[in-house]
């Protein structure tokens, strides 16, 4: 397989994790991406069986694909699209830094 050009480095990720500990969370929430088989099935595919292009593309970092899939509002999820929108805003702000 061709190496993903937008692949994240593990060192960077580990550094981010180590920074989490002393961090204070404004609303006492720490979101951890959760993606099991059912989530994957309902988030990754459109109703017509096509891939959901927003996440299934290689020009975004792999972890961002996971974020999009784990927060994509679907009928099987209890949250509305507010979480998804907030995540996009946080991500875009971080990328813009």
């Amino acid at each position, binding site marked *: 397989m061709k190496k993903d050009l937008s692949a994240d480095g593990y060192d960077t990720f580990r550094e981010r994790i180590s920074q989490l500990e002393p961090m204070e969370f404004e609303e006492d929430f720490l979101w951890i991406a959760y993606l099991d088989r059912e989530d*994957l099935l309902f988030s990754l595919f459109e109703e017509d069986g096509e891939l959901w292009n927003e996440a299934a593309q290689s020009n975004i970092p792999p*972890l961002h694909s996971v974020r999009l899939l784990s927060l994509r509002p679907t009928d099987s999820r209890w949250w509305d699209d507010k979480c998804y929108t907030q995540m996009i805003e946080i991500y875009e702000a971080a990328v813009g830094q």
Partner: protein
Amino acid sequence: MTDILLDTNVLADLLSIFFSENYRASRRFQPYQTISRELARRINQIVLWHDDNGYDGEDSPQGLIISSSFAFVEIARQFQAIANDRFTLAQFQSFIAQPPPWFFISALDESILKHLSYLPGEVIIPNGRVKSIELADALHIATALSRDN
């Protein structure tokens, strides 16, 4: 119980074999690209056990073949290049919807977080060179380690 955990490349090759006419006829995995003779033998051992016993559960005594949901995301991100006409999108979707009893799609969840924190940042590859590990590799390794919980 010994599970076999497949990373993205090996998963893609396994799916290619699984959806091939040869597999449909023989129900046996043959060595192919990243799937060595020994790996094919171990996979067949697990598949045969499940076929014979009809056991469908995460704690199979014979072990399971496992991939992280992340490996499926990686395939989806480059579907055309990786599938390369070896399996279709509908087949890929059907595998996720109903994996065979010998295959388990491991969730990407908090259980792998602690393992991610303790992995080395670099590994020595077979030719002796030191290489930084990518996050994708780290996620596969942490998924394997989390199976021992």
